[in-house]
């Protein structure tokens, strides 16, 4: 066994260091305790504000569990998976509605992406033609993405009438805000040398965007758009709650009228669809970026 000599500092120096360390730890502990106290107070105030009643939760928690038991039981009190055709009796109708849901989010995402694309160059700091344009466009986008899409849907249902059109427009508005911001942030991070190069040949603003900025950001834009599409499929599945088309109307009817096995069947189909879209967009994104790297 070998021993290593550890040099020990002289007592005075050691005491000073120890004291400093003790103070630092004490300060950190105090800060942590204070932060925890503030946070707990906020939680308690919030709990009172939100009518939290633990007794209700404990009393009715059995309902939550039994709710899942009930939605997994058919009318003839058998489990749903023992009689699949009976469980998924409306699959033809539901698939059509799910198709409509996907179509809503597709049309909404695409039109939102095109408009967001057109606006983002005006909002990005390094490509914006003027500070006032930039400010206006940025605020506009902020408004579009802060107001939840379902609120837009509620208003559009009144303006455009019931139906998927309101849902498409709501998703479009939300996508403009969300994608426009992500696009603009991406454009702000580009290398400006190609832009200078293109400008030095006497090109105008549009040519600069097309030949210097776009090639740098195209793959990232596509990736963000696919992600947004995936998110929009999820939100399109509830657009029907307010009458804006898709599978949501069928689902809320089933929940409100206690058609238990229908609830689980529709939920299953929604979850499967979201999974498939998730995997599909992931695959496409992998291919897009792979393609970029190869060339």
């Amino acid at each position, binding site marked *: 066994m070998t021993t290593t000599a550890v040099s020990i500092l002289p007592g005075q120096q050691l005491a000073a260091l120890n004291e400093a360390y003790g103070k630092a730890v004490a300060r950190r502990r105090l800060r942590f305790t204070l932060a925890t106290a503030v946070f707990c107070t906020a939680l308690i105030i919030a709990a009172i504000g939100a009518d939290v009643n633990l007794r209700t939760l404990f009393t009715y928690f059995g309902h939550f569990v039994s709710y899942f038991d009930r939605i997994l039981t058919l009318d003839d009190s058998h489990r749903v998976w023992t009689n699949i055709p009976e469980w998924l009796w409306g699959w033809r109708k539901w698939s059509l509605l799910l198709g409509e849901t996907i179509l809503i989010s*597709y049309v909404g995402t695409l039109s939102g992406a095109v408009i967001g694309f057109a606006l983002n160059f005006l909002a990005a700091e390094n490509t914006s033609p003027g500070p006032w344009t930039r400010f206006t466009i940025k605020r506009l986008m902020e408004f579009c993405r802060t*107001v939840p899409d379902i609120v837009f849907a509620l208003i559009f249902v009144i303006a455009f009438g019931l139906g998927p059109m309101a849902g498409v427009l709501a998703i479009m508005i939300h996508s403009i805000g969300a994608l426009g911001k992500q696009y603009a942030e991406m454009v702000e991070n580009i290398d400006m040398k190609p832009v200078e190069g293109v400008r030095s040949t006497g090109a105008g603003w549009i040519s600069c965007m097309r030949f210097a900025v776009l090639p740098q950001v195209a793959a990232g834009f596509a990736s963000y758009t696919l992600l947004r599409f995936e998110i929009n499929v999820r939100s399109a599945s509830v657009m029907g709650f307010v009458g804006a088309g898709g599978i949501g109307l069928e689902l809320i009817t089933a929940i409100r009228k206690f058609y238990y096995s229908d609830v689980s069947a529709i939920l299953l189909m*929604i979850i499967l669809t979201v999974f498939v879209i998730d995997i599909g967009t992931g695959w496409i994104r992998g291919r897009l970026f792979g393609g970029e790297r190869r060339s």
Partner: protein
Amino acid sequence: MTKVSIPEPEGLRARYPDVFERPASARLAWPLMLLVALAIFVFGLVHLGFSPWRMLNGLHQLGWITLMMLPPNPGSSLPTYLHALGETLSIALLGTTLAAVFALPVSLLAAKNIVPSNIFRFPIRRFLDTIRGVDTLIWALVWINVVGLGPFAGVLAIAVSDFGALGKLFSEAIEGADRKQVEGIRASGGNALHEIRFGLMPQVFPVIAGQVLYFIESNTRSATIIGIVGAGGIGLQLAEQIRVLEWQKVSFLILMVLIAVAVIDWISSKLRFAIIGPRAVV
């Protein structure tokens, strides 16, 4: 003037055949994809009942509604609205905290460097994915069936749906943690719990805290909408006022939401910097 020698095109063509003569499939891929995308788009427009006439009519209506919204005016219901806003903020804060508290232990089980066995991890991951696949609004409807109408259902809905999202994000943060500190704890004789507490947590805590703060912020928005199905908060008021066409109140409520979100945004970015900032420097 210097002369720049320009290589003859024929020679270039011969040397780099891949660049000059791409196969037809590669040249046609882009236009074809655009064409397909456009075709689906047009089919969607037709199938979903778009028509220029409806569009024009709707825009006319929308313009009318916008005019009616000005100026925003709460009428005599300002105290009710403020209370509803408080309820919404409470729902967001409580729901996110609850989700984070439950997601942390589960995320440990879903992380590759804690539970190496795939048999265990896979079902947990799928479970979290399934929860995430169901929208918050749907969870709200389910909880309303259980605990009745009101903000409590909203808290539980946000908690459940965020549980899925946070569980996934936390486990990714844990998987990204550095192995060396954990090994250091083990080398000094710590057991598995010590490894997690002193080796892992100090590394992932700032990341987790940042994500929770971000979720509180985004849940302020979600908490607005779950009121639409009856789970309390400002959304309930908003949906009601839209249904009875009280546009001035609607615009006031939207304004309140915008301001609340902006304030929460500002606070959480300050807090995030306070938690993560110093560590990023060290």
